Every structure is written in structure tokens, then in C-alpha cells.
């Protein structure tokens, strides 16, 4: 199967300011692909370059084998995009905006608009500026999906949606995926990426630092270890342990390496309690960022 998105050494500078550097991505067709990193890491820059909203400084980017700059129009016919913040024209009802949006595609989207609006319980006759943030977001979702795109690009899509709506939204996305659509899902909230994605790329300060299957990321890499001892352990060390936090009798850390070595080390302590568990993605994620500056 071909790649839905492929970039090689994709680079973008805004003047002298760093956008992204040498980003290599290969998203397979039909995949639910997560893209995580804190604000300012370069998620949106990557997405905006793919969409032709900004011009790359160097490297290559293609969608369905077509060049993102040269074949932009052809690509966009098959792409649905939902930005993080949704703003639309003043003084328009949702249905007017959606009809305008549909008029850019060579197919009848009326049925699909109704279907999506029903699924999200969105009132199409309301003016968009009178809507709550959540409802505006729903207009954005319908707008991004109404032409049944082959590739769906979501840039921090869930802000403003209540948990119940988030679930409906994820169901919608999953259904689109089952229909065959590829999904690129960018977020700084790992829980949601974990919930829906197959693979995830982690971006930090403009560079991709890791690319993993969600399961591998959780299963094979890190354990969350915490234990309580009868007396405080001074300066606990263990090769393979990261983010060691000691607070009185309690010690916790992330561990990657041979489990036997871990238990051998623990066996030498006067333990009161011990806990070894799968870490939340969030914690794994922090591991990639330790020492690095987070920029807002």
C-alpha cells in the first residue's frame, strides 16, 4: 500500500526562527497516525506545510504520492482539515457556511452534512457567531468531513468539546477510518492519541525524536516503578532508571531495561510496599522532554 503522507527532510524556517527541521514522516494509507508534542514543537507547522498554507524552506512533502506544493489543488480535493481554533465568516448560519464549503468539491454533500449534523446534534440553522465554542467546533468537524475525504488532518481537534462529545467525535473519526480514510491526529494531550491512534510520532523543538507503535511504546519501553521503604533510601541509583523522585520513604522512577536487574536491586531494600505499572503515555512523553525547554 502507498503512503498517504510522506515527508523527507521537510524543513521550515520563519525568517530565522525555527519551524521544523528535517522532518521525516511516512503515514500509511488507512492508518490512524498520532502526532504529539507540546505547543511550539512544530506540529502545526508540519501540518500547514502539508496543506500548502505555508511554503517549505527545504525537503520534500507529498500526499498520496503528489507534491504538496505543485499538486496542491488535487491533494486538497481529498483532504479534510480541522484546525485547532475554528473561525468562520460573520453573519452566516451553519448551513450556509457548510453549503459554501461543499461548493468547493465536485460532489453532492447535502446528505452527508445532515448525517454529520445529526450525529453531533448540531443545529444547522443557528448563526455561527451565536454558537458556543463547542458548537463552532462541531461546525468545523462537519466542514472537515462533509466531502468524505481520503485523508483527514486534525490539528488539536478536541479543545472545546465536552467529554461526551469527544467520544462521539472519536467514534466519527474511527468510522471514517474504517471506511478507509487515513487520519493524521495532532495533539499535545497524549490520552487522546493513545485512545485512537495506531502509531505516533513525537516531535520536539522542530525535530521528530521518535516514532513508535502505541502498544510498543507502552509495553516495551518503560515501567513505572514506585516503592516505599521502612527508612529513607539515600541517593537511589539504578542503571536504566529515569526521572527518579525521592520523597521521604517513597521513591518513584521510570525504568527501561532488564526486569531482573530491577528486582535484584529492589530485593536489597527493606520494602514496605512496591508497585510496578505501565506508565501513562504522558509520563513517557515527559521523558523525551526532560532537559529540553518547553516553549509556549
Amino acid at each position: 500500500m502507498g503512503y498517504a503522507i510522506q515527508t523527507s527532510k521537510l524543513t521550515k524556517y520563519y525568517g530565522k526562527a525555527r519551524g521544523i527541521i528535517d522532518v521525516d514522516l511516512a503515514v500509511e494509507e488507512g492508518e490512524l497516525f498520532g502526532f504529539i508534542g507540546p505547543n511550539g514543537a512544530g506540529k502545526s507547522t508540519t501540518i500547514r506545510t502539508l496543506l500548502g498554507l505555508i511554503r517549505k524552506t527545504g525537503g520534500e512533502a507529498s500526499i498520496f504520492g503528489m507534491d504538496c506544493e505543485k499538486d496542491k489543488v488535487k491533494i486538497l480535493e481529498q483532504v479534510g482539515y480541522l484546525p485547532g481554533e475554528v473561525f468562520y465568516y460573520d453573519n452566516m448560519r451553519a448551513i450556509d457556511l457548510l453549503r459554501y464549503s461543499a461548493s468547493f468539491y465536485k460532489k453532492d454533500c447535502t446528505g452527508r452534512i445532515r448525517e454529520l449534523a445529526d450525529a453531533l446534534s448540531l443545529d444547522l440553522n443557528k448563526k455561527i457567531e451565536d454558537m458556543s465554542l463547542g458548537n463552532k467546533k462541531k461546525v468545523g468537524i462537519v466542514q472537515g468531513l462533509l466531502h468524505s475525504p481520503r485523508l483527514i488532518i486534525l490539528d488539536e481537534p478536541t479543545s472545546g468539546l465536552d467529554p461526551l462529545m469527544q467520544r462521539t467525535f472519536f467514534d466519527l473519526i474511527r468510522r471514517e477510518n474504517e471506511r478507509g480514510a487515513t487520519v493524521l491526529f495532532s495533539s499535545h494531550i497524549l490520552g487522546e492519541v493513545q485512545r485512537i491512534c495506531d502509531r505516533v510520532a513525537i516531535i520536539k523543538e522542530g525535530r521528530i525524536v521518535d516514532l513508535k507503535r502505541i502498544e510498543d511504546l507502552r509495553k516495551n519501553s518503560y515501567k513505572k516503578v514506585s516503592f516505599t521503604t521502612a527508612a529513607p533510601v539515600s541517593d537511589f541509583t539504578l542503571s536504566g532508571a529515569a526521572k527518579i523522585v525521592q520523597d521521604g520513604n517513597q521513591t518513584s522512577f521510570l525504568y527501561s531495561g532488564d526486569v531482573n536487574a530491577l528486582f535484584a536491586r529492589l530485593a536489597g531494600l527493606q520494602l514496605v510496599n512496591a508497585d510496578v505499572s505501565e506508565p501513562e503515555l504522558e509520563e513517557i512523553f515527559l521523558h523525551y522532554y526532560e532537559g529540553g525547554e518547553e516553549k509556549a
Partner: protein
Amino acid sequence: MNVFRFELRRAWTSATVWTLVILGLMAGLIAGALPVFLDSRANVEAMLSNFPPEFAAAFGLELDHIFSFGGFYSFGFLYYSLFGAIMTAVIGLDLFSREKREKCTDFLMSKPRSRDGLFLAKLLAALTLILLSNVLFIAESLALYRAYAPVPDAPARALLASSALLFTELVFLAIAVFAAVFARKVRSVSGAATAIGFGGFILSALQSILEEEKLRYVTPFKYFDPSKAFFEGSFDTPYVITAVLLTLGLLIAAYIRYTRSDVPAL
């Protein structure tokens, strides 16, 4: 075509209102005031002689010609073209800063359309509104000429004179499109449009007072002189060339910027 239709639908009301204002003003001035004005030539001349000549010049009064249809038409023309310039600036600013103002550039630019196509659709919509407005303006001008000129024997010259509004407006359209595309932010379309219109008006008044020919090259209101069209049957070629170059230059710069620039994230 969908972008063209969308822009027309959103911009036609203000264009209509401005067109009605211009048509009403011209009808009022010519049908209402011209006959009385022509009858009272002696009184008017006596009154104007009490003012310094710069005063009359600033308001577009050319004493040699004012007591004729052409002269009076040209006097009023400064005001029609002021309103026309504001109308065009509103159209240009409105269409070309719409997505920027309403923060939905992402929406439009992630649709399957080339930026060339979007720019042309918007420009075409603006030109359509301006042309329709001018068809009405020229028709009314000719009708008034027929009805109120003492000797309406040069309709071709009247046509040329009234077309000055269209040409002047095209220059202002280019200025407005350029401003809309290059501005970081457009807060108020009507405010900016009024500023552009009155800026041009002040330049025009200055040029009339100083009678400095070089200043005329930067005074869009003076590129197409209806008085010259009426009395000599042509516009001044150097200024026509200036107008064409300025208009094309601004539009090309705006086009390049619109089609090449990065769309900033919100």
C-alpha cells in the same frame, strides 16, 4: 465561480448604497442646482470674488468653465469621485481582507482552489460591482446631459467625461486591494476606506491650491479630468499612463503577495 458568487452576495449591499448616494448627489446637484446656478451667474461671480482664489480652487471651482454643463459637472465630479473612491476602497478592502478580518484564511486556503484562482475570483467580483455601478452612473450622466445642458451637442465628450469615474475608481480599487493584502490587520473596512478616500481628496485639494503639476502624478483624483474631457475631448496622456502603471503595479504586487505568502497560524 462559487467564490465569485459568494463575494458578490456579501458585498453588493454596500456597493448599492454607495452607488445610490452618488447617483442621488449628481441628480440633486444637476437637476436641482444647475438651472438656478446658470441663471444667477452675476450673483455667484460677485460672491466668489470675495473669497481668495485658493479657496475656490480647493473645492474644485474652475471659474473659466463653471457656468456651463461641463464645468458644473466637473465641479460636482470631485465629490462623485470622492464617494466613488470610498465605495471602491470599501469593496477592495472588504473582499481582500475578508478572511484576514474574520480569521478564516485557513478555511478558504485549505479548499481545493489555487490561490491564483481565489485572487482572480475576488478581483472579478470587485470589478463586476464597480462596472455595474458605473454603467448606472454613465447612463445617468448622459441622461442629465441631454436634459440640462443648454446645447447637448457633444454626447461623445459627455460619455468620456463620465467614464472618468470608472477609471478613477479602478486606481482606488488597486490601492485598496494592495492595502488589504499587505496590511497585517484590517480593523475597520469603512474606516480605512474613508481614510483612503479623504487622503486622495486632501491631495487633490492641495494640488489645486498649489497648482503644482508634479504633485498631480500622485493625486489619483486628478488623473482623469472630466473638464478636460468635456472641453478638449481627451484626458492628459501622461497622467493616464501614470494611472495605468500605478494600477497594474499595485495589483501585481498584491497578486504576488496573496499567492505566495505564508498564512500565519492563529
